[in-house]
């Protein structure tokens, strides 16, 4: 019986190669591993040393590498994109990037003790891939976070985040469409800038004494 072992190993190897071949060309797998590496880095940052402030800054940097904020901006504005002058478009992308990465950073920073599991990846009709993840443990146990990804310039980039079924692109599009309809591009820019200046990242310390909380 011992003699069959090399054969067995060889055939297993062949099988593995057969399986790996198509897998390498599989967009879903590529997108998934790209997202996985970002998630791993984010979690590593969260568990590593460094003040909350430093960690948040690092996460924002990671987010900027993996998210295509320009595409997101255009998807969010859709038809209204053309109502923006080129300079306004540029300004919008800058402000919206800051706004999203700050808010993503703050949200993620709160998931300190949670795990993230990648559940799978699904090919979408138009060549995009949705990478499905879920939060494990803590208050939001089981919450699903899906990343819609697109291959841009040979790199898988996030173009939407769907938290518990709520699409960030769709949600912001609805919010922004109203503002633009009423006040035009300038009004929207004004409002996003105000948010950025006020610092949406400025979450109140959770352990603050009651008196401070009450007077806010």
């Amino acid at each position, binding site marked *: 019986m011992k003699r069959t072992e090399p054969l067995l190993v060889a055939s297993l190897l062949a099988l593995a190669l057969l399986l790996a071949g198509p897998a390498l060309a599989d967009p879903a797998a590529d997108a998934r591993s790209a997202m996985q590496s970002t998630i791993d880095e984010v979690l590593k940052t969260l568990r590593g040393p460094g003040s909350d402030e430093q960690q948040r800054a690092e996460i924002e940097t990671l987010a900027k590498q993996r998210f295509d904020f*320009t595409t997101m901006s255009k998807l969010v504005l859709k038809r209204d994109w053309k109502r923006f002058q080129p300079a306004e478009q540029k300004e919008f992308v800058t402000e919206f990037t800051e706004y999203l990465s700050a808010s993503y950073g703050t949200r993620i920073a709160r998931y300190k003790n949670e795990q993230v599991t990648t559940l799978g990846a699904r090919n979408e009709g138009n060549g995009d891939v949705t990478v499905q993840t879920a939060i494990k443990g803590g208050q939001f146990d089981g919450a699903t976070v899906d990343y819609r990804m697109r291959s841009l310039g040979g790199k898988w980039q996030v173009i939407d985040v769907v938290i518990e079924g709520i699409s960030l692109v769709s949600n912001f599009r609805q919010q922004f469409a109203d503002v633009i309809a009423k006040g035009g591009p300038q009004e929207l820019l004004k409002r996003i800038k105000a948010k950025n200046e006020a610092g949406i990242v400025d979450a109140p310390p959770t352990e603050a004494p009651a008196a401070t909380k009450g007077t806010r």
Partner: protein
Amino acid sequence: MRALALPRCPGHRIRAAALAGAALLLGACSTERGPDPWRNTNEKMFRFNERFDKSFFEPVAKGYDTVMPTLFQTMIGTFFETLTVPRTFVNDLLQGKPVAAAQDLGRLGVNVVAGMLGFVDVASEVGIPKNEEDFGQTFGRWGAGPGPYLVVPFAGPNNLRDVLATPLDLAANPSTFVNATGATVVRLVNTRAQYLEEIDQARKDSIDFYVFQRDAFLTRRAREVLDGKTPEIDDDLYELDDEDLDALDEVEESPTEQPAEQPAEPTPAEGESPDEAH
């Protein structure tokens, strides 16, 4: 008080529908007018609720949060959840889910007997799945659309289908038949306290909190009807117009990447030229 401006649905009288509880009509109506035909009234209610929350409810919940240990908050929350299990059980049956019904009956038994009358969720720890069903979800399952979005004074976001279903939900909850105002107050404040951070963050994160809240609520309910499955997102959401791609090049200054967009066909924005507009 004037009645809410009901949307006119050709061929149907929605008032009759409301009375009969024939929520099936709601779906047909709401799609024609978007999800929020009563927006004006809703926004007034929303502003009222925001004022009420910021000046009274949230501060009370914050005070409660500082004096009430998290463990007790969780236990109180679990207790009130236990009281909703009969409602879930009835709706499991109405939706034809005998397995879920059995799970929930088991959950109720385990938590009442082994979980200190329902204050501790022992059932989850021994691996009994938690289902949450109500009559609104059952009507949804039977084919009723959510109907118009509706902001209820004090209670917040809702939709017509679920508002109509609320009396049935109450009838299936044992606590309805106990005269315990104090317990109701505790339940409300306890729930609000558990969402202090979330709601605060959502207010900061949104440019228009009314729209954010509406979308979040409608999506949550749609998922609950589908037992947690995310409703299909239209691929259309992720389509860029070809003309957009040209404009993009000028804006592309992100320090990270140079996303090479799919080259647009060599017909750059033909329809744009104003002279040809005939």
